[in-house]
C-alpha cells in the first residue's frame, strides 16, 4: 500500500517536473523570440537612421558645393572686400520673420566687420514664401530691391535691403503698398522716377525669377540659410543661436 502511494507520488512528481521543464522551455522560447524581434526592430531603426544621416550629410555637402562663393553671384548684394579672411553667404526672404530676426541681430555688426575688411558678406534674397507669385510680398519686395540695385547700385541696394527688414511686415499682413516700397527705395538712395515704373509693374521680374531659380538650384530649401567660409551653419536651435554662432565665427 505504502509502496503504491510512493509510486503514484513519484509519478506525480515526475509529471510536475516535466511540466515545469516544459514551462521553462516555453518561457525561454518566448524570451528568445522577443529578443529576436527587438533586435530586428533595432536593426531597422538603426538602418533608417543611418540612411537618413548619410542622406542629410550628402544634401549638406551638395549644397555647400553648389552655392557660389560670396561676392560672386549676380543675384545678391555684397559688402566687404574680396581680401577679407572670412566669407558669409546669407540666403533669405524679405518676408521670413527668422530672417528679419537674424538681420536685426547681425546686420550692424556684420557691416562694421565688413567695413574693417574682416568679412565679406553676400546677401542673396529670393522668393521662398511667395511660392512664385509675383503678387506676393516676397516677390514684390525682391522686385523693389532689384530695382534699386539696377538703378542706384549695390550700396543703395544694401540700404534698401536693411530698410526692407527694418520695416518688415507680419507674415499674415497687412503688406506695404507699392507707394510704401517706393518711399523706401527713395530713402535708400534711388531716384523716384527711375524705380517707380519697376516697382509698380514688377519690372524686375527677371531678377526675381533668376535669384529664386539660383537658390533652388543650389538646394536652398529654407531661410535663413547661412554659409560661413563655405560651410553650412547647422546645430543651432533658435535664430538667436544662429546669430551668435555666425558672429562668433567671423568676429
Amino acid at each position, binding site marked *: 500500500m505504502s509502496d503504491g502511494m510512493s509510486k503514484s507520488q513519484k509519478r506525480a512528481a515526475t509529471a510536475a517536473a516535466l511540466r515545469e521543464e516544459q514551462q521553462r522551455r*516555453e518561457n525561454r522560447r*518566448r524570451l528568445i*523570440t*522577443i529578443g529576436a*524581434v*527587438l533586435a530586428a*526592430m533595432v536593426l*531597422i*531603426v*538603426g*538602418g*533608417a*537612421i543611418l*540612411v*537618413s*544621416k548619410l*542622406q*542629410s550629410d550628402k*544634401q*549638406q555637402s551638395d549644397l555647400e558645393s553648389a552655392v557660389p562663393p560670396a561676392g560672386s553671384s549676380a543675384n545678391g548684394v555684397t559688402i566687404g572686400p574680396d581680401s577679407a579672411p572670412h566669407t558669409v553667404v546669407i540666403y533669405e526672404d524679405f518676408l*521670413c*520673420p*527668422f530672417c528679419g530676426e537674424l538681420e536685426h541681430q547681425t546686420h550692424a555688426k556684420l557691416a562694421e566687420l565688413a567695413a574693417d575688411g574682416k568679412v565679406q558678406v553676400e546677401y542673396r534674397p529670393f522668393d521662398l*514664401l511667395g511660392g512664385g507669385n509675383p503678387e506676393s510680398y516676397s516677390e514684390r519686395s525682391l522686385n523693389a530691391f532689384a530695382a534699386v540695385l539696377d538703378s542706384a547700385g549695390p550700396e543703395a541696394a544694401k540700404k534698401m535691403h536693411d530698410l526692407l527688414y527694418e520695416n518688415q511686415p507680419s*507674415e*499674415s499682413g497687412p503688406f506695404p503698398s507699392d507707394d510704401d516700397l517706393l518711399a523706401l527705395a527713395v530713402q535708400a538712395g534711388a531716384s523716384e522716377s527711375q524705380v517707380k515704373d519697376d516697382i509698380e509693374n514688377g519690372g524686375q521680374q527677371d531678377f526675381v525669377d533668376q535669384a529664386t531659380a539660383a537658390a533652388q538650384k543650389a538646394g536652398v*530649401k*529654407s531661410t535663413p540659410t547661412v554659409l560661413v567660409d563655405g560651410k553650412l551653419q*547647422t*546645430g*543651432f*536651435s*533658435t535664430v538667436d*543661436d544662429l546669430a551668435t554662432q555666425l558672429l562668433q565665427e567671423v568676429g
Partner: protein
Amino acid sequence: MKGAVHEWAGLVARLVTGAVWLVAGALKVTSPDTSIAAVRAYELLPGSLVEPVALTLPALELVVGLALILGVLTRGAAVVSGLLFVAFIIGIVSVWSRGIEIDCGCFGGGGFDPDASAKYPWEIARDSGLLLLSAYVVLVPRTRVAVDRILFPERSHA
C-alpha cells in the same frame, strides 16, 4: 463574447494607429533635412539634440507603425506609440502657448505656417484620439490577426 469584440476592436485600433505611423514615418524618413528644420522650428531642444532627434523620430515611427500593423510585440509597440503621442501633444501645446506658428511637421513639411493657430486644436484632437487608441491596444492583451499569435501561442493554462 465580449472578449472577441475587444479582440476585433483591438485589431482596428492597431491598424488605424499603425497606418498613421507608417505613413508619417515614410514621408519623413526620405527627407532628413526637412525633418531637422521641422524639429528645430519647435524651439524646444538644444541645438546639439535637434539633428539626432530629427533623424531618430521618423525611423522609430516607421518601426512602431510596422509593429502595430503586423501585430508584433503589440503591447510594447502600443506603449511606445502612446508615449510618442504624449510627446507630440506636449510639443504642439508648447508652440501654441508660446505663439509660435509652425506646421507640426507630423507628415513631413514643417516650419512656418500662417494658419497654424487654427490647426493646432485639430492636431491636438487627432493626436489625443490616436493616444486613446494606443492606450486601448495596450489594455487589450490579444488582438485578432496578429503575428504575436504565431510567435507566442496561447499558453495552455492561460
